[in-house]
């Protein structure tokens, strides 16, 4: 989408020069997410760069590096420092992972209107994540990255609110207040945690589907979806056994059973892989998975 790249590259340049109101605010959250990711991927020192990758490459397509990282580098570390392309790619992945949860936090916990929440997040990403390289300040020894990010967002929102209030005092009657003062408690809200857990699952499933397709094992993906995922996430009836063997050509119940077991193990491997992008220690990964499960269980 070269015209989009050009548009957003100019938007970045205008922002730097302080031209215009800032970032355009799209109507829908999906297009807004696309906007943020485009900003991240297209932000360059020079304007009119036409060779930046569209924002959905590297995420949905799934490079082999993304699927099977060569190192156990923390995604957070890569997003905080390194060469420009690595930083941009890691940052894009991080934002794709966290943005839905951050938005849910603003809307559900802080009771901010969705459009206002979108704009706040957009400003936060631009001002703190991109311009101030916020991610580079994250320190794993001081706690979870999502708590760090949420704390930074909360502080940004509080600060913005105070500046708005100050402006209003200087110019009374000039526009309405954007949102209520958020609570002082910086800890992740339940809504944030639940959305975060869902993002982890979604990413693990995405990676599994890509692996199944690439290895010609769409039968594993189908069995996993129809017997396990859809019943778990949507309350759907599991596909009947006879339909299962007819659709996937299993010669015996042993084959069908083995396929389900293989599929579950494949998913488990990808799930750990997603978490391992943030945590290196296997014990910490286990603990993170247990916590995510507690979050998910509590959401019922």
């Amino acid at each position, binding site marked *: 989408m070269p015209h989009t790249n050009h548009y957003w590259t100019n938007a970045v340049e205008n922002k730097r020069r302080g031209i215009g109101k800032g970032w355009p605010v799209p109507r829908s959250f999906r297009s807004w997410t696309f906007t943020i990711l485009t900003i991240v991927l297209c932000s360059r020192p020079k304007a009119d760069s036409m060779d930046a990758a569209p924002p959905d490459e590297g995420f949905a397509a799934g490079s082999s590096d993304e699927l099977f990282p060569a190192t156990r580098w923390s995604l957070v570390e890569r997003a905080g420092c390194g060469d420009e392309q690595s930083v941009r790619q890691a940052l894009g992945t991080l934002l794709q992972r966290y943005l839905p949860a951050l938005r849910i936090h603003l809307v559900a916990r802080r009771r901010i209107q969705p459009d206002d929440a979108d704009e706040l997040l957009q400003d936060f990403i631009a001002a703190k994540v991109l311009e101030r390289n916020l991610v580079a300040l994250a320190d794993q020894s001081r706690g979870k990255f999502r708590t760090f990010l949420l704390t930074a967002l909360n502080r940004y929102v509080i600060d913005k609110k105070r500046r708005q209030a100050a402006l209003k005092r200087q110019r009374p009657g000039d526009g309405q207040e954007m949102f209520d003062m958020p609570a002082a408690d910086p800890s992740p809200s339940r809504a944030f945690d639940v959305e975060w*857990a*869902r993002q*982890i*699952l979604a990413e693990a499933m995405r990676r599994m589907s890509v692996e199944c397709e690439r290895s010609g094992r769409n039968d594993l993906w189908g069995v996993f979806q129809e*017997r*396990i*995922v859809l*019943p*778990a*996430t949507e309350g759907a009836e*599991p596909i*009947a*056994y*006879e339909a299962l*063997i007819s659709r996937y050509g*299993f*010669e*015996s*119940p*042993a084959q*069908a*059973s*083995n396929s*389900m*077991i293989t599929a*579950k*193990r494949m*998913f*488990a491997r990808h*799930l750990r892989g997603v978490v391992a992008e943030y945590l290196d220690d296997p014990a910490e990964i286990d603990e993170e*998975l*247990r916590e*995510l*499960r507690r979050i*998910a*269980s509590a*959401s*019922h």
Partner: protein
Amino acid sequence: MPEHSTDPDNAPSWADLIDIDSMDKGPPVWSGNDLGAVLRHQLSAPIQFDLSNLDAQAVANLQQSPQAGRLLVSTFGQLLHEADPNPELLDLTRRFAKSAMNDQNGPLPREVALVLYYACILVALIHCGRRITRLDNDALARGVRSVLEWQWLDLRTREVLQRGLDDLAAKPG
């Protein structure tokens, strides 16, 4: 006899997807409707396919026998429902079923494995006059009666089990 694999309370939730290890510890979740379909599928499956995984040497020995050509293209259903079963194959199938009963991640739901297990023993007794189990008749009868309560059994297998139960009743011990 708990049908834990058919318990709707064991249906997965999205929280379980995160603790995928716990899902992996349990058997695949088969509904009551599925069990009949699984049994029919197992009965139509070639014997050689499943038994080779259990005891490759035993299958190889059978392949040397004069009846090898007939034996190893048989299905489990043919083995159990026809008049002239091979007792070695029945014993192999009994061992296969017993192994599956005790393996949570095994090839068969436990209920289907139980049906296969008792059916092999009874067919060996009735048609071959051979006892391939150390269970006494009372214990056998108890197990077969509980299996016969399952509504999803196919007609021919039910007939085999009922005839075996009647035979046991005539020979207490």
